[in-house]
């Protein structure tokens, strides 16, 4: 898109909005939809309309932690859950043999359908304008963002702007010796905006991610692989979903072998990762196959999952084989893999480098500290993954709209949602590599379950205007039923009897000697809600999800209460707010490192301050005293 030398682009006033969202990937679509649904007049700009909700990497949504995020998005009134429920080709529940806290849904998506469905939803949404256009710079006056200017010269004005640029900022694709400026999958990269952000004073980092080659499924010999079917049970991400897709498509499992590894070893000198051609930091949790082989050279094989990219395509994603080796080497690698010996490669894998904003420059609302009214969300904040992007996009959109409508930001804390954990980690600790959510990042994992996302967040979603009244009523009814059923279990006694004995024997459980409350009986690990309920007189039909809640709440009550106690402690510290203009250099006694970090991060609460790395409990004690002293001074002075 080079303009003629010396010709000045004429800019024109193209309209005024409440919120402008730059980008229409997984963060952008949530941001735009949320803002519009909250009543803000919203413009969504994207480099290409073909890129709306595009999945340039794996064709799947969900998984541990990530799947819970999708549920949270749904409970808050976001779109990802709805959209994947309409477009999956396979759905599975993971970790079913473990506890409820770590169970998670994962869907294989039909990529094209996913995009189409999302685009349609956006197009049908009131208050929301979707338009093609590359944003080159922002309109910033005295530290306040007033709008954006598009390459065509269109200047749009708004009260809030959300940047969701994904990997487009100075994106560079690398395949062996080949390097070129590009967004994902040969989309056009965004160059000027990155320089503009730097000129505005933002710290940027260079990150890297990658994707594997795709092959034509017609040329795959599946007989040499293991089938991985979806679950038969009706499963859905959204609490709204009533219809389930029947004809699911399986995935397939195969492995690399020593032959594959040998080819990689022999060509390491051509690997951009090891030759130094790639400077961006890649994620440890999603390493390229060459990294796996170098770092874990004692492993004789690595798992590869063959994942169909959709129903109307033969393209198959070779999950596990992410690589930036030269195309020639990629083809040799593929030929060594059982089932792929004769597979036709349709696209090579590639690495992509991009600029991201150092996320400690953000408030927990995702608004930048430097420029008021400017928000960033998604991969631009150093994360990776569609779900992480969508969760941030939703919060960025909500807060951009709230800002435009003159309301306080919505901030979820670490005990309310994985989204809260994600954002708090980013803005408090920053990240040195593309950030991915893991269940182990959450200290209250047992509270942040996928089954109770609605109980945690629907209320908030309704309050901010994203959950319609009708859905809210249904939610309240469910909540009421759960409480009622718990109460019933707490007061109802089960007496020893033949039928009780029979059940206990069939479950390998100890026999009942004395009458026992239903609740106590349910605490036995061998017994499920259904088991205990079968011993009780009929008391109306109880929906499955209500029984599930009662079972989880009763069975794990001890652990849940322990975590709730910890949460209470944490919340006390979150409630102690720190003034935004606090001058840490004036506080005697705070260690130098802590002072520096606190000045950079500018935490909004003592709780957040305590999580900043390099800040010790003694620094927090001094901070507390200082804050209290200030209050006193104001009161008396």
């Amino acid at each position, binding site marked *: 898109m080079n303009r003629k030398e010396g010709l000045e682009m004429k800019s024109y006033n193209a309209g005024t909005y409440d919120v402008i969202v730059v980008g229409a990937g997984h963060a952008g679509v949530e941001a735009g939809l949320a803002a519009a649904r909250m009543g803000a007049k919203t413009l969504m700009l994207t480099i290409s309309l073909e890129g709306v909700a595009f999945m340039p990497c*794996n064709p799947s949504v969900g998984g*541990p*932690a990530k799947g819970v995020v999708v549920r949270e998005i749904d409970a808050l009134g976001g779109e990802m859950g709805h959209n994947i429920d309409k477009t999956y080709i396979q759905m599975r529940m*993971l*970790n079913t*043999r*473990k*506890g*409820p*806290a*770590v169970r998670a849904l994962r869907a294989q998506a039909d990529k094209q359908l996913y995009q189409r469905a999302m685009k349609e939803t956006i197009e049908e949404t009131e208050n929301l304008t979707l338009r093609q256009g590359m944003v080159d710079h922002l309109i910033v006056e005295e530290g306040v963002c007033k709008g954006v200017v598009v390459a065509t010269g269109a200047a749009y004005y708004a009260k809030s702007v959300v940047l969701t640029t994904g990997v487009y900022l100075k994106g560079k694709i690398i395949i062996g010796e080949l390097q070129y400026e590009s967004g994902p999958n040969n989309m056009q990269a965004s160059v000027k905006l990155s320089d503009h952000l730097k000129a505005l004073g933002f710290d940027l980092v260079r990150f890297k991610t990658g994707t594997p080659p795709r092959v034509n499924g017609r040329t795959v010999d599946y007989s040499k692989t293991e089938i991985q079917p979806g679950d038969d049970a009706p499963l859905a991400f959204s609490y709204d979903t009533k219809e389930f897709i029947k004809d699911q498509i399986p995935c397939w499992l195969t492995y690399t072998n020593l032959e594959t590894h040998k080819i990689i070893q022999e060509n390491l000198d051509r690997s951009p990762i090891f030759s130094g051609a790639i400077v961006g930091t890649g*994620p*440890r*949790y*999603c*390493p390229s196959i060459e990294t*796996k082989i170098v*770092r*874990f050279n004692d*492993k004789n094989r*690595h*798992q590869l*999952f063959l994942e169909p990219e959709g129903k109307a395509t033969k393209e198959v994603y070779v*999950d*596990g084989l*992410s690589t930036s080796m030269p195309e020639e080497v990629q083809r040799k690698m593929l030929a060594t893999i059982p089932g792929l010996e004769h597979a036709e490669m349709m696209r090579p894998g590639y690495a992509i480098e991009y600029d991201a904003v150092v996320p400690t420059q953000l408030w927990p609302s995702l608004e930048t500290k430097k420029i008021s009214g400017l928000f960033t969300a998604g991969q631009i904040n150093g994360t990776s993954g569609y779900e992480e992007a969508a969760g941030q996009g939703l919060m960025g959109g909500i807060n951009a709209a709230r800002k435009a409508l003159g309301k306080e930001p919505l901030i979820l804390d670490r005990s309310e949602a994985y989204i809260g954990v994600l954002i708090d980690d980013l803005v408090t600790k920053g990240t040195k590599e593309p950030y991915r959510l*893991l*269940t*182990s*990042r959450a200290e209250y*994992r*047992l509270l942040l379950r996928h089954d109770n996302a609605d109980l945690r967040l629907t209320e908030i979603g309704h309050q901010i205007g994203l959950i319609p009244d009708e859905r809210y009523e249904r939610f309240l009814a469910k909540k009421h039923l759960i409480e009622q059923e718990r109460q019933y279990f707490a007061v109802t006694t089960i007496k020893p009897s033949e039928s009780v004995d029979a059940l206990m024997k069939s479950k390998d459980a100890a026999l009942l000697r004395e009458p026992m409350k239903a609740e106590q009986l349910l605490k036995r*690990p*061998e017994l499920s809600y259904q088991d205990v309920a079968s011993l009780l007189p009929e008391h109306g039909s109880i929906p499955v999800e209500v029984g599930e809640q009662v079972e989880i709440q009763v069975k*794990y009550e001890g*652990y849940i209460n*322990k*975590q709730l106690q910890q949460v209470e*402690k944490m919340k*006390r510290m979150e409630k102690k707010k720190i003034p935004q203009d606090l001058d840490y250099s004036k506080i*005697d*006694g705070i260690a130098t490192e802590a002072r520096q970090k606190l000045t950079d991060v500018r935490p909004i609460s003592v709780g957040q301050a305590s999580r900043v*790395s390099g800040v010790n*409990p*003694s620094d927090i*004690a*001094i901070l*507390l*005293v*200082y804050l*209290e*002293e200030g209050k*006193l*001074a104001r009161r*008396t002075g």
Partner: protein
Amino acid sequence: MDYDTIAAISTPVGEGAISIVRLSGPDAISAADRLFQGSKSLSEVHSHTIHYGKIVDPQEGQSVEEVMVSVMRKPKTFTREDVVEINCHGGLTSVHRVLELVLDQNVRLAEPGEFTKRAFLNGRIDLSQAEAVMDLIRAKTDQAMNVAMSQMEGKLSILIRKLRDRLLEILAAVEVNIDYPEYDDAEVMTNNILHEKASEVRQQIDRILSTARQGKILREGLSTVIVGRPNVGKSSLLNQLVHESKAIVTNVPGTTRDVIEEYVNVRGVPLKLIDTAGIRETDDIVEKIGVTRSKELLQSAELILLLVNGNEKLTDEDRRLFQLIGKTPAIILLNKADLPLEASIDEVAQLAGERPVLKTSMINEKGLDELEKAIASLFFSQDVSTGAEAYVSNTRHIALLKQARSAINDALEAADQGLPVDMTQIDIKRTWDLLGEIVGDTVSDRLINELFSKFCLGK
């Protein structure tokens, strides 16, 4: 403001005959009441009254200490919270025992300066005092840091770190099962495996705690014997140490032996000085109490201070004393350095081997500083004492270890009950965190780092 309940010894150790364990917070009265046996329950007594009774170990039913307990209900207290003060007079041993029992009642050990901090935060003291509070926190923190630093080098932290590494392995193995359920190269953690691994950890914690329970060093002091020929300056040394430290806590004539025990605090090392002063100075000590008895005394010692008269040639008796020391850590004092040196320094050095030899003069008070340094360095370099874990003497560490034990017990129980592994994991993680507080390791990224360095993850 609503805080948790805290407790600490509120009189500096060794200063004054009475030590006070102070509790503050919403559960202060109920916690103290569970340990108190008197004519009335503490929950029923009037505010700002004092009561005579006993502190009883609720598990063993044993009376630990006779006490006077003051009960002060909020808001007219120092912290503006409920405050209980347990006045103990039985010295180091029992006041620490009382504190430990209090900390078993879901009460947390106060951080340095925390009572004052609460007083301030609850508006009890005014602005002009705020600076002083800051200084207090700062000073105490520095001190705590120094202590932490010296303990960092100690065996305890090595042990705890090893234990944490084991726990980290378990945690990472469970996490990898959870976050990468399809990853096939990690051992699937079953409750049986978890139980086995958690049992090993509990044994370790028990072992560390068992030495702490004996309270060997902190409560009884490092048992130290001063030996030497008559008139070599043993009593003077004892008096000097006692005088120097100004830390006489108790002075109990031995009941079974004719010895006197003095408790002194030498640069943070508590010593129980077992003096042979009860034995008449004029007699040959070895002859008098018999070889067996001397051996017994010397062998039970954890530190021996052997005095040799530098002003005289070495005698056979001196040489026999050197032999009797055996492998017990010892410091050799070549005393009477104010007088001309007559003893063969070469022979003393040869007899002393690797043990430090110091020239001292009790009359001129020379060499005492060096002696204190030598004792402190012996103690902190772990050469002294019989048990490797004897340094779990810090009340905070003991409290944390107990909490860690209770957490790992919860894990074992969860595994026994067949709860899902990710529940058991919660308790194991808590154990790991608690042990981390002992060594001051609060870096939270370690688990995730372990995950990615150990397993080849990611599709």
